């Protein structure tokens, strides 16, 4: 589904005052992919997007677009368009005038512009809104118009800066499907910024997890979820149990003193590591069938599953299960070998965990 490199960020560094927002960041974006920059606020994801859009100049590094260096190019000369966080629809123009803005600048013919407005409004399911004013629209509608205004210019890349942040949950979920549909219909590259891991997992072809100005991991949603590179990624993407452990040898790890079979290799012998286990990967079994036993300390009904906390081996295990074990029940813990993910201990706080060449 993805072609060659379309955008290449090379060694981007950006400071605001003494605050280093991006530190020597390398990232490439392929043609036709839905790439999500994911991370907590302040991780540098929005700054990365603004540098691609041309609203911010990097202190050092290069932005290559389609083989050309566009680092110094102003936003109006870049073949990409942005959907802004607060929509930024021009309040003094009608919906039609908003959508026509970019086309008028390119001096397109009247009929072409009319057709494009019609087409774009149809694409975002807001036919007949031409003469409304932006402030008469709901948040979700303004959002769609902002997208329509961007895509009529036929950009090669659409940048979206937390576009669903201001919408309520149901609308947000609907818009996620809309965006995937739009992306497939338009066949262009989407670069999407969000702090919402569920949004990222649902829509993306590629997720870039960022923290404190560094890229932590790049990969498909499945890779990021199932094989987190480090504790930060594991913790940020979904809930997980992160337990300091010792790698005894290839295929065998000691977790809280109990030996578990695993599939990871090449960590050496008797090395301290972190083990990541997703709560849904833990099976609660009868006490006598397991080497690691504990007591259920809390139980919450979550709809699809029960969320339990199990105190076992001195650690509070988070467990998701469709089977119910009342508080106080004695249980054994079982994890399949391929559900145990072994990670090296981080070298420092803001470790740089991954570079894009690994995907």
């Amino acid at each position, binding site marked *: 589904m993805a072609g060659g490199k379309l955008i290449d960020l090379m060694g981007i560094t950006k400071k605001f005052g*003494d*605050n280093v927002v991006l530190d020597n960041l390398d990232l490439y974006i392929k043609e036709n992919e839905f790439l999500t920059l994911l991370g907590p*606020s*302040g*991780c*540098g994801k929005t*700054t990365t997007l603004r540098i691609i859009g041309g609203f911010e100049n990097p202190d050092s590094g290069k932005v290559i677009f389609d083989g050309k260096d566009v680092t110094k190019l102003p936003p109006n000369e870049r073949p990409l368009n942005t959907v802004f966080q607060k929509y930024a629809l021009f309040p003094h123009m009608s919906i039609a005038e908003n959508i026509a803005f970019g086309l008028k600048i390119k001096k397109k013919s009247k009929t072409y512009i009319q057709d494009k407005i019609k087409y774009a409004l149809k694409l975002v399911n807001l036919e007949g809104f031409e003469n409304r004013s932006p402030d008469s629209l709901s948040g979700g509608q303004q959002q769609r118009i902002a997208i329509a205004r961007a895509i009529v210019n036929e950009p090669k890349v659409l940048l979206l800066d937390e576009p669903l942040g201001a919408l309520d949950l149901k609308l947000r979920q609907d818009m996620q499907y809309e965006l995937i549909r739009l992306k497939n219909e338009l066949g262009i590259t989407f670069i999407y910024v969000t702090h919402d891991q569920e949004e990222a997992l649902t829509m993306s072809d590629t997720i870039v997890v960022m923290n404190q100005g560094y890229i932590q991991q790049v990969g498909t949603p499945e890779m990021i979820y199932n094989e987190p590179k480090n504790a930060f990624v594991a913790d940020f993407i979904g809930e997980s149990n992160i337990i300091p452990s010792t790698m005894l040898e290839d295929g065998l790890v000691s977790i809280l003193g109990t030996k578990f079979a695993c599939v990871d290799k090449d960590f050496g012998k008797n090395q301290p590591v972190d083990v990541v286990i997703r709560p849904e990967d833990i099976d609660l079994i009868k006490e006598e069938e397991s080497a690691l036993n504990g007591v259920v300390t809390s139980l919450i009904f979550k709809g699809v599953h029960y969320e339990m906390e199990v105190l076992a081996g001195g650690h509070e295990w988070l467990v998701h299960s469709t089977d119910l074990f009342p508080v106080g029940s004695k249980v054994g813990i079982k994890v399949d070998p391929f559900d145990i993910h072994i990670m090296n201990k981080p070298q420092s706080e803001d470790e740089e965990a991954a570079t894009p060449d690994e995907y």
Partner: protein
Amino acid sequence: MVKKFFSRFYLGLILLFLYAPIFILIILSFNKSKSRSRWGGFTFTWYHNLFQDEAIMEALRNTLIIALLAAIIASVIGTCACLAISNMKKIPRGILLGISNVPMMNADIVTGISLMLLFIALNYPLSFSSILMSHITFNIPYVILSVMPRLTRQNAIIYEAARDLGATKSYAFFKIILPDIFPGILSGFLLAFTMSLDDFVITYFTKGAGFDTLSTIIYTEVRKGIKPEMYALSTLLFISILILLVLINRKKDKEHGEKPLRNA
């Protein structure tokens, strides 16, 4: 770079235009010659004489008392009105705010004349209190203009939060709402005070014989020649407010400096 130079140059020219008369007046306050158009050497005489001049001192007192009282009363009336108006529905809100626009948009001369006619119709003597009431009238809109934008929905939310946390109505008002809108009240007060101090037209129509403010004294002196003491007084007023504003600004800048830079 060239653009920056031109914009600074332009800004400088405009400021020169605005401040040129002020420099002239400051220079005149040190001019030994009584004539405005001749330099007779440097002197402090006018500053010295100023404090002996009963008429000027009296007018200065009148001016300051009227400006201060008018600004305070207008701030109270205006702030109360804003608190009430911010809760009103669209139509009464529009009407009340519309009324406050009348003295802003009306010509000073018409406001002055209409107030004069009112006092005469009521047989109310034209003197200190008639000027004071007139000044309050044209000051209220400045207060409303400064306070109104501060009363936003955010304000109602934090008020409710304070009530929820156990604050009484008056406690919540004095501890939460008032500090929040205080900068607006202060700028409204300063604006009102300045406008009152600088007013001539409305005072001119609503004052009676024998009562003078600085403006009205100056106006009668325009024909026969301004007493140089007046330049000295203006210079003193100007310099003292300049120093005050610089001090306030210094303090503000310090507070600003401590705020962290923007987040990405």
